[in-house]
C-alpha cells in the first residue's frame, strides 16, 4: 500500500513541475514533453533517475522523464555490451515496447474512433 502512496506523491510532484513550467514560462505542453524526456535522459545518465525509480516506482517510470530514463539506461547497457555501436542501438531498443505500443494502439484507435465535433 505504501508503494501506491509513494507513486502518487512522486508522480504528482513531477507533474506539478510541468504545470509550474506551463503557468510561469508559457511553455506549450509539447515543449514540456520534449523537455521532460531530455531531462529524463540526462538524469538517467547521471544515475539520479534510477534512485527516483527505486523510491517511487511507477511515480517515476510513468511520467515522460521515465521514458527518457529508459532511453539512457538502454544506451548505457548496449555501450557496455557492444562498445561504440551501442550508442546507436541501445536507446530505441530499450524503448521499443513503448514506441511500438504507442504507434500500434494509436493507429488502431485513431482510425476506429470519431473525433467529437469541436464547438
Amino acid at each position, binding site marked *: 500500500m505504501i508503494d501506491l502512496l509513494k507513486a502518487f506523491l512522486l508522480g504528482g510532484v513531477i507533474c506539478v513541475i510541468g*504545470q509550474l513550467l506551463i*503557468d510561469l514560462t508559457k511553455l506549450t505542453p509539447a515543449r514540456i514533453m520534449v523537455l521532460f524526456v531530455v531531462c529524463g535522459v*540526462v538524469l538517467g545518465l547521471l544515475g539520479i533517475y534510477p534512485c527516483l525509480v527505486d523510491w517511487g516506482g511507477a511515480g517515476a517510470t510513468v511520467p515522460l522523464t521515465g521514458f527518457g530514463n529508459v532511453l539512457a539506461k538502454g544506451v548505457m547497457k548496449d555501450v557496455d555490451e557492444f562498445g561504440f555501436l551501442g550508442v546507436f542501438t541501445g536507446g530505441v531498443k530499450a524503448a521499443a515496447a513503448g514506441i511500438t505500443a*504507442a504507434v500500434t494502439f494509436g493507429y488502431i484507435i485513431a482510425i476506429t474512433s470519431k473525433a467529437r465535433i469541436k464547438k
Partner: protein
Amino acid sequence: MKKPISKHEYQKLVEKKAPGSHVVRNLFAAFFTGGLICTVGQGIMMLVKSFGADKDTVAAVTSITMIFLGAFLTGINVYDEIGKFGGAGASVPITGFSNSIVSPAMEFKKEGYVMGVGAKMFLIAGPVLVYGIFASVVAGIVYFIWKQVM
C-alpha cells in the same frame, strides 16, 4: 441589497483575482491527476509482478498497458476532458504521450490515411522521439568517452 458593480470594476476584480488563484488551482489539479495516473501505473506494476514476471517484463507490460489506456480514453473522448482538468498532470505521464498521438490522428483523418492519420500522429510524438533519441545518442557518446577515460 448589494450595490451592483460596473463592468469595468468587475473586469478589474477578475484581473486581480484570476492569475494567482488560477496557478494554485492548476498546480493542485496537476498534482492530483498526475499522481492518480501514476498510482494506476503502480497498481498495474504490482499486479504484473504478482504473476511472477521479472523486472524488465513488469516495466514493459506496465508501459504498454498505460499507453493502451491513454489511447483508449482518447478514442472515447475522455482523455481530453482529463487534460482540460489536469493540465500537465495529464500530459506529462506516458498516457499523455499516447493521447498526443491519437488526438491529432483522429482530428486529421479527413486528410487521408497517409498524410492525415499517418503523418499527424507524430505532430507531438515526433518531436518527443527526435529529441529523446538524439539525447540518448549524446548520452551514449558521453558514457562511452567516460568509460575510456575512467
